[in-house]
């Protein structure tokens, strides 16, 4: 009899755990799951601290050729500058595990960010990959936009041309820019989900 109740308890526990995991997965048009990560300078940042502002999440790996495409061309920095100047919070998140590509020392991250004149609000370190998995981040870059009420309003690619070629940037439709412009103008986002492209996140 005891073992019967034991099995029931285990089933109830695994059901509750599954629900908990499901609740903590990012979904479009739903409240973006909260997280806390430490940036390259040692400062902690909690997503919910930015309630009332638009937040962009940019999955990053400075050694990935798709990330280099958008930084070498200054496309990413221009977007960061344009929207942070309008009050948008821009968080770059690196989910590369220790020893994997893109898991750089803090000094190296600062050097790269300075050389690139990066204009993100913070560069957050997610070595365990927990936040990456919570957002189903698959590629670098992989972009997300969260509205001032904390709702996820865009997830996907940075733009419409899937390549490592800088020459394609001007020809592409920039989905992040389009979604932010629409949202900042008080309109609903017309393209909420696109297929991201890039290197795999190095979990």
């Amino acid at each position, binding site marked *: 009899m005891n073992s019967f109740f034991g099995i029931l308890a285990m089933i109830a526990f695994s059901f509750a755990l599954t629900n908990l995991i499901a609740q903590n997965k990012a979904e479009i048009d739903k409240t973006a799951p909260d997280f806390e990560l430490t940036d390259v300078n040692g400062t902690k940042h909690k997503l919910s601290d930015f309630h009332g502002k638009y937040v962009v999440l940019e999955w990053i790996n400075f050694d990935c050729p798709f990330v280099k495409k958008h930084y070498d061309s200054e496309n990413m920095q221009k977007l960061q500058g344009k929207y942070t100047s309008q009050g948008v919070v821009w968080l770059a998140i690196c989910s590369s595990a220790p020893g994997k*590509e893109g898991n750089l020392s803090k000094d190296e991250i600062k050097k790269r960010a300075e050389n690139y004149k990066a204009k993100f609000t913070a560069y957050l370190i997610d070595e365990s990959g927990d936040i990456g998995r919570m957002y189903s981040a698959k590629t670098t870059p992989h972009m997300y936009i969260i509205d001032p009420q904390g709702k996820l309003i865009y997830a996907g690619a940075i733009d419409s041309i899937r390549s490592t070629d800088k020459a394609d940037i001007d020809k592409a439709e920039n989905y992040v820019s389009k979604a932010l412009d629409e949202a900042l103008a008080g309109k609903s986002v017309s393209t909420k989900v696109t297929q991201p492209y890039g*290197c*795999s996140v190095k979990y």
Partner: protein
Amino acid sequence: MYFLVLLSALLFMAGNNETAKISVHSMHHTVESGESTWIAIGIEPKKGWHTYWANPGDAGLATTVEWILPDGVSITDTIWQIPEIIETDGIVSYGFHRKHYIFYKLATPANSENQNLEISATVKWLACKEKCLPGKDTVKLHLFPSKQSKINKNFSDIFGNIPIRIDKPLQASIEDNNIQLELNDNLNLSEKARFIPYLEGIIDNSATQYIQERSLVVPLDAFHTEIPGEFKALILDNEKAFEVLVIF
């Protein structure tokens, strides 16, 4: 009246690169004017590297071929060889560690005598092991009118490992964030069967697929893009692959 087309630079014109070697091969040494032939683009990743299939999966980039074709020459069909499923830390990709080929059916123009038809193929790929590097190479071949017809016997060695095309479309529906594919009598699949669309962004590549009451159940990606009314897909089952048209 027949004209023959000599395909020069047959086996093979090859390019080389840091991550992969590209070659071009033809089914015929000569082909009758106005008829079709098959051209294969060979992609041989260097040891440890892999390149990607038409749908690269969660990450990566499909290999592409940009053709420069003379007037009257056209591509009428494309066949990819069967990809491997490559899983790394929960990220699922479809691609190739081995030398593989993409086959293109080429229709030649009628009355093409005394012409030198240059065909150029610029191949762009992404190769990854832990890191990823893009590659690019151009291979060319020439078609000359000729009265001699000859099949390239070596082509049969490479024209394989391709999916079996199933003529009857598979009816599908979407229920509870799953695609439910009605399996017809011509398609007897094992529990190991894996469904992979040629299009990216539809299915959850790392989710378990299963057969339930003559339907193959395929979970959708949590962030799936718009699902077209019909699309082509592969069903991998043991060593075989079936190419199917899915209709909703």
